[in-house]
């Protein structure tokens, strides 16, 4: 087993998918959690492959990009599907989640107060329902409670961390997406995920 060390900020953000993958797979990993922004120094940036986090050290070699890291762990430790077409489907759900996450990031970090209100309103009234609608449809077609096949895959984990903020902030919306809620609860009931979430540090994002 290689030695793994995740370097990211002390929050969920774009690092959480990596943590979820390792935990779901039952694979041990070390972590460096950088306080943002106070500890995000020039020295830390220079240590990163492309001056950003997360990056994963695998036996000392550094690899950036959360999507690349998550896919690697999923492939390595059985969180993908059983066929190329199933993996194409799983990657589609993951990519959809990243699209929504990126839209949320743009709204959350918008500095212009008026623009921020505009973006957050659009997020809540358009982007989120659209995204949840797609997920509800996929889960309805799946029938297993998981996004693909009969078991947990990267798709379930990607959706879980992506919906964390909106699930907390807009619980009422979720009444219209029962299968999404069911999937969330199902994922959280899996022993390794349950254990991880029960001890996970609570952060704003």
């Amino acid at each position, binding site marked *: 087993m290689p030695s793994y060390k995740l370097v990211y900020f002390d929050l969920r953000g774009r690092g959480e998918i990596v943590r979820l993958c390792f935990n779901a797979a039952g694979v041990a990993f070390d972590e460096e959690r950088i306080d943002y922004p106070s500890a995000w120094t020039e020295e830390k940036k220079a240590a990163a492959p492309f001056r950003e986090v997360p990056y994963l050290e695998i036996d000392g070699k550094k690899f950036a*990009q959360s*999507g*690349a890291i998550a896919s690697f762990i999923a*492939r390595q430790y059985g969180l993908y599907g059983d066929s190329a*077409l199933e993996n*194409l*489907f799983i990657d*589609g759900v993951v990519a959809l989640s990243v699209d929504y996450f990126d839209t949320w990031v743009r709204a959350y970090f918008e500095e212009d107060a008026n623009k921020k209100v505009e973006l957050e309103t659009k997020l809540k009234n358009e982007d989120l329902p659209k995204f949840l609608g*797609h997920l509800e449809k996929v889960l309805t077609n799946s029938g297993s409670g998981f996004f693909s096949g009969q078991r947990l895959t990267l798709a379930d984990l990607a959706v879980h961390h992506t919906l964390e903020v909106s699930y907390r902030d807009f619980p009422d919306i979720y009444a219209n997406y029962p299968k999404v809620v069911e999937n969330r609860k199902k994922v959280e009931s899996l022993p390794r995920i349950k254990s991880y979430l029960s001890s996970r540090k609570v952060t704003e994002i």
Partner: protein
Amino acid sequence: MPTYRLHYFDVRGRGEVARLMFNAAGQKFDDVRYTKDTWPDFKPKTPFGQLPVLEVDGKLFGQSGAIFNYLARELGFYGNGNMEALQVDVVMGLVNDFIPLMIKVFFQEQDETKKKELLEKLLNEDATKFFTYFEKVLKENKSSEYFVGKGLTMADIVVYDIVDPLIAHKATIVDPFPLLKANRQKVESNPGIAAYLKSRK
């Protein structure tokens, strides 16, 4: 081999990397292109109301990133093994970080003055930042001719495709990056890609 049909608009955009990979591999595919008039009828049939869509033996799959990953794996452009796949994905990730900067300039910014400002920033500051990263990855790869391993992968093709429109705006943009420049020539020397580029409008 399955029957492939790529559904996209009649532009390069988020479909071109798939077209390049099909051509590089010499893999036959239906290149379906939608216009403003023909898109509305197809939209409700797509998985997520968007293009591109890849049709594999009649089944429809959405999301360009997912489609590219699948084609790269099927057509042999993902390197060898999980570590090389990770390296290809790292380059994909970098390109995906750069794309929004291009979209903002070319498609979103309406104010002409702001647009000119952003274009300047894109062609100078942003391009320098990302091309430096690309150059770094090429340098760190033993062969240095390709981004990953010893041969053409999706990483080379994706970077090639994203740099193209920038060269149109600033012909010398790749010149300060010798490995990147040489890599472009390597991509263009693939027979399938060379033939496709000749015929591409």
